[in-house]
C-alpha cells in the first residue's frame, strides 16, 4: 500500500477514535494489536488470506480481540481486515500513534520488555525518557520475551538498549 493510503487509513482511524473520545485507549490497544500482528505469522496469514471470505476474517479478528480490547479498537481492526489492508496494519497504527503523539506534542517511545511493566514503572520510565530526550514521550510498551530481561527504548532515532539479549550478543561477539 502507498504511504498516502496508509496515512489516509491512519487519519480515518484517528478521527473515529477521537470522535469516540477513546483515542488514548484505542491508540494503546491498536499499538499492541499491531505488535502482536507483526510477531505472529499465523495470525498475519489468517487475517490476510484472500481465500477466506472477508466477513469470516473479520469474525476471527473480532473473536480474538473481543474480550481483550475496547469495542472501538475491535471495530477499527475489523474495518482494516474487511478492507483487505490488514498487511499494512502495523504501518497504519504506527502512523496513527505518531499522529496522536504529535497532537499531544509528544514523541513516541517504544519500549520492549520481557515482562509487563507496572503502572508505577511506566510512569517513572516515561519521566526518565522525557528527561533524557528533552521531549514529552508517549510510552508504548511491547512485551517481547526475546529480550530476556532489561529494556530497550526507541525514541525517534535514539535507541537506549540495556537488554540481556543485547548483552549476550555482545558477549557472543567478544567470545
Amino acid at each position: 500500500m502507498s504511504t498516502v493510503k496508509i496515512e489516509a487509513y491512519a487519519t480515518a482511524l484517528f478521527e473515529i477514535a477521537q470522535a469516540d473520545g477513546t483515542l488514548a485507549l484505542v491508540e494503546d490497544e491498536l499499538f499492541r494489536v499491531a505488535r502482536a500482528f507483526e510477531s505472529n505469522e499465523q495470525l498475519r496469514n489468517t487475517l490476510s488470506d484472500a481465500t477466506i471470505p472477508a466477513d469470516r476474517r473479520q469474525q476471527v479478528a473480532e473473536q480474538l480481540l473481543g474480550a481483550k480490547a475496547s469495542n472501538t479498537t475491535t471495530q477499527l481492526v475489523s474495518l482494516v481486515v474487511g478492507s483487505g489492508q490488514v498487511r499494512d496494519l502495523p504501518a497504519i497504527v504506527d502512523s496513527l500513534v505518531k499522529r496522536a503523539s504529535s497532537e499531544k506534542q509528544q514523541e513516541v517511545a517504544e519500549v520492549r520488555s520481557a515482562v509487563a511493566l507496572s503502572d508505577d514503572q511506566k510512569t517513572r520510565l516515561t519521566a526518565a525518557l522525557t528527561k533524557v530526550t528533552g521531549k514529552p514521550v508517549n510510552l508504548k510498551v511491547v512485551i517481547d520475551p526475546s529480550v530476556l530481561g532489561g529494556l530497550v527504548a526507541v525514541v525517534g532515532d535514539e535507541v537506549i538498549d540495556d537488554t540481556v539479549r543485547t548483552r549476550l550478543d555482545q558477549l557472543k561477539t567478544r567470545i
Partner: protein
Amino acid sequence: MIAQLVGLLASEDPNVTHHWLFPETAEIIYGGLSSVVVIGGLIKLAGPMAKKAMNGRTAKIQKQLDDAANALTTSSTEAVGIRAALGDIAGERARMLAEADTQAAALLADGRARIATEVAELEAKAALDLNAARGRSSDELRAEIAMLASIATPIVVQATLNDQTKNELIESFISSVGAGR
C-alpha cells in the same frame, strides 16, 4: 789303336775283373773322358739355364725375403701402432674411469647436498605445518568453546532470570535513564 783296343777287349774276359774294387783302367779312362765330356756338355749347355734358374730362384727368394722384411716392418709398425693404441685405450680407460669417478663423486656430493637441503626444507615445512596445526587446533578449540558458550550462556542466563531479576533489571534501566545515563 783300335786294333789294340779290340785286341785288348778280345783278350779280356768280360766276366772277370782285375780288382774287386777298382774298374779297369780303360774304363776309368773312357769313363773319365766320357764324364768330362758329359759334364762339360752339361756345363756348356745346361749351365746358363741352371744359372738363370738359380738367379731367378735367388731373386724370388730375395723377393720373398724382402717381402718378409717388409711384412715384418709393416707388422712392427702395426704392432707399434697397436701398442700405441693399446696404450691410448688404457689411457682413455684410465681417463674415463677417473672422469667417471669424478662425476660419481660430484653426483654423490650433489645428491648429499640436495638430500640435506630437502631434509632441511621438509623439517622446516613440518615445523610450519605443526605450528599451523597447533594454531588451527587452538583456533578450532576456541571456536568450539565460543560456539558452546554462545549456546549455553543464553540458556543459563534465561534459567537464572526470574521475575525478581527481570524487575531489578527494569528498575536499573529506569534509574540509569533517569540519571541521564
